[in-house]
Structure formats: structure tokens, C-alpha cells
């Protein structure tokens, strides 16, 4: 029996707490004897600390300690080398944290950090990705566990034989996640037990990592993440702040609050690798693809391998008999890149969906029609039918809503005064996955219910969505359900990442609710509390490996100033097929948020590296531009009513990431349509289009 909570636009449960300032974030819990930590970044790129002089720092008022490799508590060696901070004098990249100053106030800690004198022996470094870098190599697999290369048919022969060919290379710069709340932690030790309030996308994995590093049983560690101000992937696993805070707190034997600054978020907590992507497409004269090749180059660090799965999008998006994808990496003296909203799919779709636009022009057919013509019911990669694939329906409905019909494909064909107007389209897709989770459901004598699961709400509305799912699964109005999340004391659950939070958590919650209802055969309130639990490890693990994907189509209209080259968005419209939508309000926020981030990628964001210093010089939000509200004049997101019973009990596909996939390509394609100029290196800023009236 469903009460129909799922699908209704409930406001966020924690909304009032957030807007009144009572919701507590990681460093906002009041506590006695608290101290403040300040991370000290390395001033060299590659080298070794030869001396640390803490005399001045320790003499500075309020400073309690300087924790560094010479005096820090020891951590276990393990598979997390980049988190083994303050253990060795080695420096692997500029900005690596080499010390923490602890003081009685934040300002005193910051001043103390300035006074720590560090001498280094430094060596030459390499920090710039190039397609001919001598260090290029083939990783064993790409994130999270995809094959590095794939091949089907004979790409070279298929490509050579085709009447229409496109061979283009796209470049994307480093992107920095920049959630509103920085990586921040309050850590405190009591009797060998560690309690951290951490800004993370998953308290369960953070606890596991801390247990490993500090060689503690997981039950000796508690990680609380009740409210989290965003992450975009950069808080997907334990990061420097939680390790530094825990080390410092152990060293000073007092609670330590440590929040990274905005400047410190540019690098050491992860970022999206720059990419160089060569795409080759071949088609017959009707636009049917015969050969597809996507060669992606990215970077990783010298400490740990992170291989962005940039070309994976191309493996399943469009069909062709001859296909090849490759990934190559260079180990540079840089921080390790990491997840950023739709790792792989986001940069990969920018390249492929741009190349599809170039192919549409080469063949002379409409870019919507080209995509429709190359749709496939069978996953070209796995060779199995997709559980559901509504790309064409998204393209058709998007075209209808956007007013695509009758578009003049000729370039620079629309003008409004000084503005050149153009429209563009791109496809989107993102895998629909789920991970094992556990949950409990409790019936109380007063007729209310308590549902507990260590899910994380990073601002997406996850808490509210799970609450809605729980109410329907319990068969009661949601007002009778209380939900508790964001604490590792709760049943272990998947992290908020990979667009699989709601799928994973709702699965466990539904199973727990079902188990509870079986324990309450008469349906009425029990005389004492009754609890049922569920763990979906077996069920999720036993799910057949089928190609499950969400799809979307993005339409954009831009105007470009013919003289100055300024690009402005007139409107952006996306239609998505992502299974069942639990909450239209928060779903819309996720989708337009992703689309806006794609716009930001297309027009604004760029980490500017200075090779001499080996780091990004525009490391604040005044100089690393993200799209402002004024840049988004009109944005609309719609979704299809999609039912897919091969996903998970809630029937959801996840919507956190698909909005960014393809968005930048739609913008770039619109700019090309407006101006006749194809910019293949993001961002598309005015200096690349200035005087466009004289170009093309």
C-alpha cells in the first residue's frame, strides 16, 4: 500500500534549521576546551623537508603546538598514501600539508602557521599535462574499475573506409570542486576513542579509513556528518582535513577544529584532471556511425593513481560496428585528481557530444536527428539490452519544448543587433548504480516510526527523499516517520556519490520497512518498540549486471557579442529520463544545478597553473570564476515519467550528476552555431571570440 509520499514536492525537512542557522556543520558544534588547527602547505613542488623551525611559531601568543613529521602521532602504512600526512619529510606537490599549527584561536593558529620556518631540498618538477609528455602510460584500469581500453571491430579500417569523417581534439582545463562549505573537521579523542564531526559525503567510509590509518577497531570511531554544505565528489572519501584534525587532536589532547580555507581547496582535496581528448567519428552519408574512437589523456599524481574514466561515456552512448576507446595518464608532481561531479562522463560527453555536432554539420543533417539515428537499444559495450533507454524520447520532448523545429542550421544565421544568436543540443547519460547499505525501521507504541540509516545529505534533499520512500514503504503518512542520518553509529550505508545515494539508501530502507511490517501482522502500534533491520549486501551484489543508465537531452540558446566576444546564455533546457523522481522540488534543484555547473565549465571555470610554482594561481572565487546567477537568465529542467523495474525497489536512477553531462557541449555547440567558430578548448571566454565579426 502506498500513501503516495513519493513523487510529492515536500520541502526539505531541515530547511527551517538551515535558514535559521541552527543546523550545525562540522566545525560549528560548541565544546569545552576546543582548539583550532591551521594547515601549513608546502612551499615547494617536489622535495624534502630538511629542517622545521617552530621556535617563533611556538612563541606566538595562543599557539599550543606545531605538529609535523617529526612529532606527529604515527599512522599505519596503507593504501591511502596521500592521507598519510605529517609522517615523512617528503613533498610530492606544492600545497601538500606539511604541518598543523594548533592554537587557542583561529587567528592565532593562522599567525602561527605563518611563523613556521621550513627549509627544503627541492628538485625539478613536471606539472603540465601535454599530449606528448614522455611520462604517458597506460593505467591498469580507470575509475572506478573500468577497463582502460576497449576495442570492437576494426576501427582503423572502418574509419578509413567511411565517406564522412571527423577527427578533432578537445581540451579541458583543471576544474576545482569548491563546495560552499570547505573540507572541515572537529576531532576529539576520549580514552582511545575518536569522535569526529566531518564535512563528508559518507561517514561510513571515513570511519573505515580512520580505523585503518589509526589502527583502531571501527567501533572506536564515530563520524558525524549531520549537515554537509556540498561536496561535488571532493568529499567522497576521507580527505586531509579529517586526518590533520585527528592527528592534531591526539597530539594536543584537546578537541581540534580544522577548516581548510577557500585557497586551500584548490588542489589538495582533489580536482578534475585536465583532459586532452581526440575523437574520431566516421559515418555513412545518412549519418549512421560506422566507427568511433575516443582517446583520452589525463593526469594523476606521483603518490596515488586516479585515472578519470573520460572515454567510458563513448563506449555506451552511440552504436557503431567499429569502436575503440583508450585512456593514458601522466604522473605529474601535482595533487591527486579526484571525483568531481560526473567524473569521466562530464569531460567525455563534452568531447563526444561536441564531435557529434561536428559530424552533423559534416553530414548535413540535424544534430537531434543524428543522435536519434544512432540510438541503440543494446549497449554497444556490454552487448545486452539497456534496462531502459529514453534518449530519443528526451531529445524529442526537449526539441518540442525548446522550439527546435525549423532551426536554420546555417552558421551565423541569426542576429539581434550586436548579438549573434545560436542554438545547440547535446545528449546526456549517466550510469544508474546502487551499493549495499543497511537500515533499521522501528515501530513505536505511539504509532510513530523511526528509520535509521547512515546516509548523508550534502544539500541535495536526500534526507527528505529517504523519508518519503520510508513512509510509502511503511504504508503510513510521512508525518509519522522520523528519519535519522549522518552518523556512523547508524546502520552503515553507501556514500552520497555516483548518483547512487537515493537508490542505495531507499533499497535498504524499503527492505527494513518490509521486515518491520512482517513483524507487525495486525498493523496497529506495538505495545513496546519493535525494530527490524535490513542489509542489502547480498541482494545488491546478486543483481544481474545489466546496462542501466539515465538519459537526457540538453538544449541551449546563446548570444555572442559580435565585437567583444562575450557569450551570454539566453536559455537552457534539459529533459531527463532518470527513473522515478522521488521529490520534484529537490530533483529540479539537482538537475538545474548540474546544468548550471556545465554552463560554468563551458564559459567560466579554469584552473590556471603556473608551471614555475607548480600550482594554480587563481585559487579563490574572485579569480576562479564560476557561473553567477546573472549568467543564468533562463533554465528549465523536465523529466519523463519513466518506470524501470530492473533498477532497485524504489525505481530511481539518480539525478545528482546527469545534469552536468553534455551541458558544456550543448553550450559550445550553440556558440559554434551562433558564430561559426568552433572553440575546442574550454572555457569559451571572450578572448577566444573577440572580433568574431571578422572571423570565420
Amino acid at each position, binding site marked *: 500500500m502506498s500513501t503516495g509520499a513519493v513523487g510529492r514536492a515536500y520541502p526539505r525537512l531541515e530547511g527551517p534549521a538551515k535558514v535559521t542557522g541552527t543546523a550545525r556543520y562540522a566545525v560549528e558544534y560548541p565544546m569545552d576546551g576546543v582548539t583550532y588547527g591551521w594547515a601549513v602547505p608546502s*612551499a615547494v613542488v617536489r622535495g624534502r623537508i630538511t629542517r622545521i623551525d617552530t621556535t617563533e611559531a611556538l612563541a606566538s601568543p595562543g599557539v599550543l603546538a606545531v605538529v609535523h613529521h617529526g612529532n606527529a602521532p604515527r599512522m599505519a602504512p596503507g593504501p591511502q598514501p596521500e592521507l598519510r600526512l605529517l609522517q615523512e619529510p617528503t613533498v610530492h606537490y606544492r600545497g601538500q600539508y606539511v604541518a598543523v599549527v594548533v592554537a587557542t584561536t583561529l587567528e592565532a593558529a*593562522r599567525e602561527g602557521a605563518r611563523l613556521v620556518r621550513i627549509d627544503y631540498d627541492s628538485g625539478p618538477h613536471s606539472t603540465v599535462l601535454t599530449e606528448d609528455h614522455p611520462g604517458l602510460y597506460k593505467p591498469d584500469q580507470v575509475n572506478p574499475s573500468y577497463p582502460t581500453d576497449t576495442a570492437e571491430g576494426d576501427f582503423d579500417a572502418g574509419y578509413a573506409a567511411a565517406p564522412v569523417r571527423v577527427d578533432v581534439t578537445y581540451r579541458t582545463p583543471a576544474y576545482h570542486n569548491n563546495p560552499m562549505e570547505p573540507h572541515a573537521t572537529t576531532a576529539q579523542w576520549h580514552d582511545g576513542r575518536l569522535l569526529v564531526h566531518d564535512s563528508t559525503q559518507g561517514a561510513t567510509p571515513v570511519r573505515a579509513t580512520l580505523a585503518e590509518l589509526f589502527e583502531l577497531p571501527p567501533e572506536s570511531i564515530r563520524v558525524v556528518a549531520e549537515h554537509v554544505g556540498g561536496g561535488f565528489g571532493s568529499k567522497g572519501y576521507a580527505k586531509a582535513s579529517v586526518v590533520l584534525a585527528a592527528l592534531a587532536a591526539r597530539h594536543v589532547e584537546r578537541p581540534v577544529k580544522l577548516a581548510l580555507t577557500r*585557497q586551500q581547496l584548490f588542489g589538495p582535496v582533489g580536482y578534475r584532471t585536465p583532459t586532452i581528448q581526440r575523437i574520431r567519428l566516421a559515418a555513412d552519408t545518412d549519418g549512421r556511425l560506422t566507427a568511433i574512437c575516443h582517446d583520452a589523456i589525463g593526469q594523476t599524481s606521483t603518490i596515488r593513481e586516479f585515472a578519470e574514466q573520460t572515454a567510458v561515456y563513448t563506449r555506451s552512448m552511440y552504436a557503431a560496428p567499429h569502436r575503440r576507446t583508450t585512456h593514458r595518464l601522466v604522473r605529474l608532481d601535482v595533487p591527486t585528481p579526484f571525483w568531481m561531479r560526473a567524473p569521466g562522463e562530464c569531460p567525455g560527453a563534452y568531447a563526444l557530444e561536441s564531435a557529434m555536432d561536428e559530424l552533423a554539420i559534416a553530414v548535413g543533417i540535424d544534430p537531434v536527428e543524428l543522435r536519434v539515428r544512432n540510438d541503440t537499444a543494446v549497449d554497444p559495450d556490454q552487448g545486452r539490452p539497456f534496462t531502459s533507454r529514453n534518449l530519443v524520447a528526451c531529445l524529442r520532448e526537449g526539441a518540442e519544448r525548446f522550439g527546435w523545429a525549423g532551426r536554420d542550421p546555417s552558421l551565423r544565421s541569426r542576429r539581434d543587433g550586436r548579438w549573434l544568436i545560436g542554438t545547440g543540443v547535446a545528449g546526456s547519460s549517466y550510469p544508474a548504480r546502487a551499493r549495499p547499505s543497511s537500515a533499521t525501521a522501528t515501530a513505536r507504541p505511539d504509532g510513530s516510526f523511526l528509520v535509521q540509516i547512515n546516509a548523508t545529505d550534502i544539500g541535495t534533499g536526500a534526507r527528505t527523499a529517504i523519508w518519503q520512500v520510508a513512509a510509502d514503504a511503511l504504508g503510513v503518512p510521512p508525518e509519522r516517520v522520523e528519519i535519522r542520518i549522518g552518523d556512523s553509529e547508524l546502520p552503515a550505508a553507501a556514500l552520497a556519490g555516483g548518483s547512487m545515494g537515493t537508490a542505495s539508501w531507499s533499497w535498504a530502507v524499503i527492505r527494513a520497512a518490509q521486515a518491520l511490517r512482517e513483524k507487525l501482522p495486525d498493523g496497529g502500534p506495538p505495545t513496546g518498540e519493535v525494530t527490524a533491520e535490513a542489509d542489502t549486501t547480498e541482494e545488491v551484489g546478486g543483481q544481474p549486471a545489466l546496462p542501466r543508465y539515465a538519459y537526457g537531452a540538453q538544449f541551449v540558446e546563446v548570444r555572442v557579442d559580435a565585437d*567583444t566576444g562575450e557569450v551570454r546564455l539566453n536559455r537552457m533546457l534539459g529533459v531527463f529520463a532518470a527513473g522515478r523522481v522521488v521529490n520534484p522540488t529537490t530533483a529540479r534543484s539537482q538537475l538545474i544545478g548540474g546544468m548550471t555547473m556545465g554552463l560554468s565549465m563551458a564559459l567560466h571555470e579554469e584552473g*590556471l597553473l603556473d608551471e614555475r610554482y607548480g600550482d594554480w594561481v587563481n585559487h579563490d572565487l574572485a579569480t576562479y*570564476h564560476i557561473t553567477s546567477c546573472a549568467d543564468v537568465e533562463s533554465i528549465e529542467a523536465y523529466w519523463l515519467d519513466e518506470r524501470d523495474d530492473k533498477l532497485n525497489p524504489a525505481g530511481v536512477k539518480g539525478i545528482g550528476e546527469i545534469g552536468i553531462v553534455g551541458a558544456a557541449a550543448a553550450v559550445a555547440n550553440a556558440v559554434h552555431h551562433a558564430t561559426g567558430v568552433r572553440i575546442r578548448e574550454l572555457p569559451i*571566454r571572450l*578572448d577566444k571570440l*573577440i572580433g568574431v565579426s571578422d572571423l570565420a
Partner: protein
Amino acid sequence: MRAFRYHRPADVAEAVAVLTAEPQAAYLGGGTNLVDLMKLGVQRPDVLVDVTRLPLDTVEEVPDGGLRIGATVRNSDLAAHPVVRRDYPVLARALLAAASGQLRNMATTGGNMLQRTRCVYFQDTGKACNKREPGSGCAALHGQNRDLAVLDWSEQCVATHPSDLAVALAALDTVVEVHDADGPRDIPIAELYRSPGTHPERETTLVRGTLITAVRLPPLPAARRSTYLKVRDRASFAFAAGSVAAVLDLDGDVVRDVRLAYGAVAHRPWRAYRAEAELRGRPFSPELAARAADAELAEARPLRHNGFKLPLTRAITVRALTELASS
């Protein structure tokens, strides 16, 4: 960050006396730039002399027809002032093109004029910068310099002045009223800002302790036909990639008078005298405006990443003047 004392002076003389006596004191206006720089360790004053409670917060029409603007008038209030909007639209537009609503509510007239460059190397104590640390070198000269100067830079510094307001004030031949240890005096705005030369750490001609108390806009009836055009990398909340303040006075189609100043091209707001000379006395046309801009930019020396500023500045010069001519 360095611990500091906070001082609230009773009057201008006391403020100047404290600054003159305390070698590391700094005036605090809205704090929108200084406080950031203090957190970053770029500026490390030990005393902040808060001038925002001094009676410098009024806008008055002066008998001879000009306007006197107190140094602590907030940017939002100044932009909304009816006389500014009517008689000096270039000023209101420059103010509103800057920063964000929240920052404009805090930022003061004097503080805005004396804000520091946003050159990324200046703002990072881990990088070489002669302006921040004389003698340490200029990392920007051969670094990421897309936002930096094309005119009048030196080997020691390629920074730009970030203020939009100052560009409009430069075009209006503003008189800056200051108070130093010797008392009050007036400085023409053309003599306020310095070229970087070999001393980029000196951004103005003011001696230490000098407080800007007001700016005086001379009467300029032509300024009713004036505008500020700013191009930036996003639609809002960004420093200029290029900007122009323009006043145009036509006699029929002949340029009787014109005032032009550029932002984002130099260490100081750049009054475009050469362009003005090209325009004055000639029949206005967009082609003439383009030639005027070219004359002004003839001696520009673009850096590796900022060559686009030349065609951009030219384009906005033509646009601003053409719009004024047809208004």
C-alpha cells in the same frame, strides 16, 4: 593573522595623527579589501583606524555647480543618489557595475579608490611580487597575466588598478580632498595615482597618513551624456576585462568636448588624453572613435595572455561613444 588594535578616532585630525604616529597603522573603511588581505597576510597592520564614523558620509551639491562626495559614502548610496544619477550617470553606472550588492553596501568612496590590485601574485605570499615585497620580483610578468596591464607597466610590475569608480572619477577630472599632517589640501585625480616604475609598492602620491576626506566633481554639464561600459568574464561580480568611462559633448555632429578613461589596462585608471585629442573638434563617427582608441593604444605592450585587451578596449570605446552620440 596578526593581532591588531582597533581605534575609532573622534575626528579627521586624530585619525591622521594616529596614522602618522603609528608606522604600521591602516585606515579601515568598509574593509571589503583590507580585511581579506589581512587574512592572507598580504597586509599586516597592527592598528586599524576606523574612519567610517567620521562625518564624511554626505553628498552635497556645491554652490558652483559641482558635487562633493564624502569619503565614507557607501558605494550603494552614492550610486542611488539622485544628483549622481541625473548629472553624472557615468559614476552611477561604474559603481553599479562593480562587485556585488553586499559589497557595495559596505565599500566606501575613499576605500574603493585606494583598493589594491587583484593580481593573483600580489595576493599570494608564496609568490614573488615587488608590490607586496619590494625586490622579490614580478612573477606576473612571465606568468598568468591575462588580467594584467597592457599600458605603462614596468619590468617590476604589470598590475592593474581594479576600481571601476576610479575610472569614472578620472574621466570627470575629479578633485580629491585629502588631509595629512599639514592639514587639508586638494589633489587633481590625475596626480593621485602613480605608474609602477621601479616602485610599484607606491600606488599613489599620498604621503603616509594621508586620509582622503572627499572627492569633488567639478561642474560638467556634458556629463549628463555619459556612460560607463564594462566587459567582464561573467555577467556579474567580476573585475573588468575592459572598461571605459565616457563623456561626450556634441555641437551638431562635431565633438565639442569628450572625456575618456579606461579601466583594466594599467596600474592606474587610464585617462585617454590622446584619444580625446583625436576626437575633439572633429565630426563624430564610429570610425573616428576607433581611430581615437587606436591612437591611445598605440604604445600598448600586451603581455603573453592579454593581447585581447586591445581590440576589446577599442570595441567598447566605439560602442560607448556611438551610444552617447545617438542618445
